[in-house]
């Protein structure tokens, strides 16, 4: 920390840019008080139509039975599902209660991961996070990182999830089939679901490609992982998602990664804004920012 309060390298760099630099030592807390931004303009959906928030005193209708359909958004704000510090129920924050039950193999795999967030974060160009190159997040990371607006469709045989982040979709088969045995691995595995009561769909996913990370801080999983997702319809307007990881190769016991994460139903006309990982856009970002930020050529 002492270095940060010494004359920073940035000062030297900036001084080379201009003789008209003025500096002052002002506590950031005070400066921040002066920068109360103007209230945000009206938020728009993907069709550039205003997003209306439901009245807070409006009482939700009872939950419909065996029905998750609709467009859902994190109830505590659109960024509540970002998970930048890892699984929301078990963030990598140094607290003992959030220490995961790694096996020796799991610990070793964790140490191979070089995330850009968390205690082990590295510079952007040094990261081996697969999503930086636009690889799919897979399951369970699609739930644990960047869980944003999600549309759910139902057919008599399946539940289909349309995720905003990376514009990916999944099919959860609810026709009674069993998970396949010895099937080829898939980024998003194989998902089957059963209604355990009128309002709760429990989904089991297996056969996931172990090139993916579990979350944004590089928690690992094996190809023998089983992910349980519990979608619980609380009432007409609310849904809760709980995700449990069971992977004996990496963890000594199952652990809850997302605990009753609340989502709120949006109007049926809500259009989800496109959010996609484009390799060409990612390349531009890395050239202009990622590489120079990491001390490499670029820009």
């Amino acid at each position: 920390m002492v270095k940060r309060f010494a004359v920073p390298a940035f000062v030297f760099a900036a001084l080379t840019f201009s003789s008209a630099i003025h500096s002052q030592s002002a506590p950031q807390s005070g400066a921040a008080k002066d920068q109360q931004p103007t209230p945000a303009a009206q938020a728009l959906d993907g069709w550039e139509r205003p997003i209306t928030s439901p009245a807070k005193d409006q009482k939700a209708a009872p939950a419909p039975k065996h029905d998750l359909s609709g467009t859902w958004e994190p109830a505590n704000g659109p960024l509540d599902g970002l998970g930048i510090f890892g699984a929301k129920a078990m963030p990598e924050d140094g607290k003992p209660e959030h220490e995961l039950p790694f096996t020796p193999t799991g610990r070793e795999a964790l140490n191979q991961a070089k995330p850009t967030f968390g205690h082990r974060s590295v510079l952007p160009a040094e990261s081996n996070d697969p999503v930086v190159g636009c690889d799919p997040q897979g399951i369970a990371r699609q739930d644990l990182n960047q869980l944003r607006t999600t549309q759910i469709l139902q057919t008599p045989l399946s539940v289909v999830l349309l995720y905003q982040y990376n514009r990916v979709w999944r099919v959860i088969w609810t026709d009674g089939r069993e998970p396949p045995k010895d099937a080829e691995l898939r980024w998003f595995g194989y998902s089957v679901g059963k209604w355990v009561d009128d309002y709760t769909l429990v989904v089991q996913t297996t056969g996931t490609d172990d090139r993916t990370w579990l979350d944004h801080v590089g928690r690992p999983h094996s190809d023998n992982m089983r992910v349980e997702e519990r979608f619980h319809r609380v009432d007409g307007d609310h849904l809760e998602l709980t995700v449990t990881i069971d992977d004996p190769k990496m963890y000594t016991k199952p652990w809850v990664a997302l605990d009753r994460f609340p989502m709120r139903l949006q109007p049926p006309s809500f259009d989800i804004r496109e959010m996609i990982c484009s390799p060409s856009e990612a390349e531009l970002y890395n050239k202009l920012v990622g590489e120079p930020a990491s001390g490499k050529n670029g820009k």
Partner: protein
Amino acid sequence: MKSKFLVTFALGVGVSIFSVPLLAHHGNAAYDTDRKITVKGTVTQFVWSNPHCLLQFDVTDDSGRVVHWIAETENPSTMSRNGWTKESLKPGDEVTVTALPLKNGRPIGRIIEVVPPNGQRLAGIRIPQTGSDSPQLYPKQ
């Protein structure tokens, strides 16, 4: 156009107590989260794209030397929820950019706030420094 610009070095711990902007893919390891800078310049390009919107602008000092800056913020989906549009910033706009600086001193920053010509402040995204809370749009909706 020659324009004076001001770089304010605000040293202190305040920003750590408050919160810092973030990138969804890319963390804060490259940035000095204990400081922020304020730079005035002229927009050359505003890239409204994933994974992060990029504001490019030129800062000219009294001697006429131009330094090209890039300030990044979140993706269009997130920023649109914070009042930004692809039209928020245009080439030629005179802007005041407050940002986290890079540790290595290159003219790149992470946007805390941008003040465009109309004075309507455009805020970045704020998150706590630890993982116990969630990032929030600012001001909170």
